[in-house]
């Protein structure tokens, strides 16, 4: 009787686990394919076959995978491919590779804002564009931003959770201990951890909202794209951003998108000429 019941329970457990196991196997084959693609792409890059590397990294991205390293490498591949792609006007990046490079560096930094290589390469790539300087920030907000960009929102959230746990442990110590020194340590420690908890929670929330932003876009076009004063090609061209200029997207009207430049200037651009940083 007892044996039958055990058998039954085992069978049930297996039946419940089977779909999970199958999915795991499916994932494993998928990951092997991604690994092969990754190796192929990095080898192509090392062999200076940059266009091929860019295509392969894009395939990984198209399969739904993403990481800061993937976008960083994709940006590099576009940048290198574009450097030798001299157009009819004698300028490099003839097929819009610079815009794609900037876009992918920004994507990498969105996932991992502390990735210094991506920031370095982004700064270098932006030097090739005609992007304008942003409005200067206040010192405090700059400090806050650089502190925030040290970690991703997930990391800040993990720290805040840990701070909460330690804070409550110290509070317990303060509340229950009969030893004066322990109580003191518990009290002040808990106070400090509470402060840490609040700050990291705010940082995490702030970083999360940055990571969730989908109104930042990069101009991706062959050379330069005209920006009109109204959503109408007959109106005056107020600016001609080159590929790789980063803008903020506002309203959308037909094929037109309202954009704001870093220096606050607004205009309308064809939506096809920009790509949102997701």
């Amino acid at each position, binding site marked *: 009787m007892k044996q039958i019941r055990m058998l039954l329970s085992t069978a049930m457990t297996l039946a419940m686990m089977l779909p999970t196991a199958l999915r795991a196997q499916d994932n494993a084959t998928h*990951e092997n394919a*991604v*690994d092969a693609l*990754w190796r192929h792409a*990095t080898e192509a*890059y090392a062999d200076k076959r940059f266009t091929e590397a860019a295509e392969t990294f894009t395939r*990984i991205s198209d399969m*739904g*995978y*993403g*990481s*800061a*390293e*993937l976008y*960083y*490498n994709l940006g*590099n*591949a576009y*940048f*290198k491919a574009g450097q030798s792609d001299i157009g009819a006007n004698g300028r490099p990046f003839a097929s819009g590779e610079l815009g794609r490079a900037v876009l992918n560096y920004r994507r990498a930094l969105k*996932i991992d804002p502390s990735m210094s*290589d991506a920031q*370095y*390469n982004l700064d*270098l*790539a932006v030097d090739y564009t005609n992007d304008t300087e942003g409005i200067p920030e206040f010192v405090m907000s700059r400090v806050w931003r650089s502190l925030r960009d040290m970690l991703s*929102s*997930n990391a*800040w*959230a*993990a720290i805040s*959770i840990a701070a*909460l*746990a330690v804070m*409550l*442990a110290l*509070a*317990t110590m303060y*509340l*229950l201990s009969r030893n004066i020194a322990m109580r003191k340590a518990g009290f002040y420690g808990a106070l400090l951890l509470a402060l840490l908890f609040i700050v990291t929670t705010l940082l*995490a*929330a702030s*970083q*999360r909202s940055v*990571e*969730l932003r989908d109104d930042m876009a990069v101009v991706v076009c062959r050379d330069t794209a005209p920006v009109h004063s109204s959503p109408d090609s007959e109106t005056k061209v107020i600016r001609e951003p080159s590929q790789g200029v980063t803008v903020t997207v506002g309203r959308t009207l037909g094929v037109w998108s309202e954009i704001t430049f870093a220096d606050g200037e607004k205009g309308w651009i064809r939506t096809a000429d920009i790509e949102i940083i997701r």
Partner: protein
Amino acid sequence: MKGHFLRRVVALTTVLLCMIGTAAADGDVSFKVDAPTITPLGSYLRVAFEVDARPDDDSFEAPDFAGFDILAGPTVATGRQTYWINGKQTVTESYTYTYVLMPQAKGTYTIGAARISVDGRSYTTKPLPVEVIDEGDQSESRSNRNNSSPEAHVAKDDIQLRIKLSSTSVYKGEAVRASIVLYTRTSIATINNVKLPTFEGFWSQELPAGEDSSSREELDGKVYTTYLLKEYLLYPQQSGALRIDPAELTAVAQVVTQSSRGFDPFFGGQEVHNVNRKVSTPAITLNVKPLPEGAPRSFNGAVGQFTMQGSMPPSKISVNSAASISLTISGRGNLKFIDAPSVAMPESFEIYDTKTSDSIKVSAVGTSGTIKYEYPFVARSSGEFRIAPVEFSFFDPAKEQYVTLSTEPITLTVTNDGSAAGITADSRTLTSYGEKMKQLDRDIRFIHTESGKLRREHRLFMFSPTYFLLVVIIIAAFVVIYAVMRQRIRENRNIVQRRIKHANKVAVQRLRMAERYMKQQQRHPFYEEMLKAMWGYISDKFNIPVANLTKETIREELYRRGVAAADAELFCEIISRCDEAQYAPSTSNSMEEVYADAMEIISKIESIVKR
């Protein structure tokens, strides 16, 4: 003795002078033959043997003129020239032996070597081949000449202009020689209205005119006298079929005709006419082949055959001293189009302008000579530097391939010795290399070869359900732990309280038990119960486990709670007495006494330590 020596010197000098004299005579004598190398059948030719010294009498031996009839000769002509150069008189004499010959048949015949002796020394001429060609029947044109106008005396093809190219197919940049030659079968008085081609697509350089510009040549089966008007070296600057514009000129031919008036008493019935004839060269094209693919990186347009020599600075120089690398490129080709090969100098070297000096000779075979490049520099920081080999590439049209020459790599040790002190402060402040690393160029950083955590989507943890769940779990855990701990502490405190409260009661119960044993006179259980009562009382009263108790701690604990030292001592003493009495059979002190003392001290402590 002395006279003898003098005589010997004089004799020696005389011998030497004589030797110089003969040597000079030997070197100067030239004996050569002058005759056209080509001649038409049916017309005579003149052969002259010329010697520029006085020959020994009757020493001239004429060669065998096989194939020719001797019409006249030898006629001897002498010439004498006297030069005064720097007050020194030089006399040159020349003797010319001339024959007039008539070829017997067409073919190639050789005029053999003539022999002559000057001052007993014999000289010979080189045998000279002469080609005799048959121009066909000339009688028609001859008869034509006899009647009509002077124009008709100059046949259409009697005067022709040609551009002759040394090669019809060359590589771009390879020199080709172009000669503008006038061919004539009549005597030319003068030429005018000369229009020379512009040589479009070429870089042209005129060659210096040679001394002897006329000769005889065959053209279309006829013998012409040729005059070399101009000669150029052409360097094609582009590839493809390059057309050379025709050259034009008007030649004035002199024609002697029989006077149409029949009889002229003085001039013998002959008149001289000038006939203008405008001639131009046929248009010619030169096929210029482009240079083949696969030019080396250091190739910058040099075509020809070159050699390179590098002269390197000493391998050890001191800081702030000047040195230079020099390269000498010599050979034949388009030397004037060569750019200075680039030399990769270390960053800390101060490099000055390259000096170029050349000595280039233009001759019929092409431009040849040497170009010297000098690369001066000043080493501004010490250390060991390696200068990459200097490369120079050129295209060799003969081998049809690129050739790259390179110097040895140069290793240069720049020492920081005392000689730097000699440099003025001015130049030292000018340069501050080597203090800070310079950013040479910027490039993006390399890719990350590790894929990192490739995720299907970027999950946000902040404010996610997991996040809130974790917060709730942590807070709940805190609340539960706190509540449980608090409860347990409270319960613990209650137990202690009760024990303290009941300490006296427990002690009294145990003492009663002891009293019962006392009445039964059971010594061992009595003392045992007494000890239990005493130890247990302290343990309960002060909440100290029995195991942790000693007489010392009891004494201390009692004293701390305000019990007099004597009483504490008494308490311990009672314990000692019980301990002793428990195992000693003797009845040194009665049970009653111990019991009374214990009762008394416990009630005393109880009254003092009241909680």
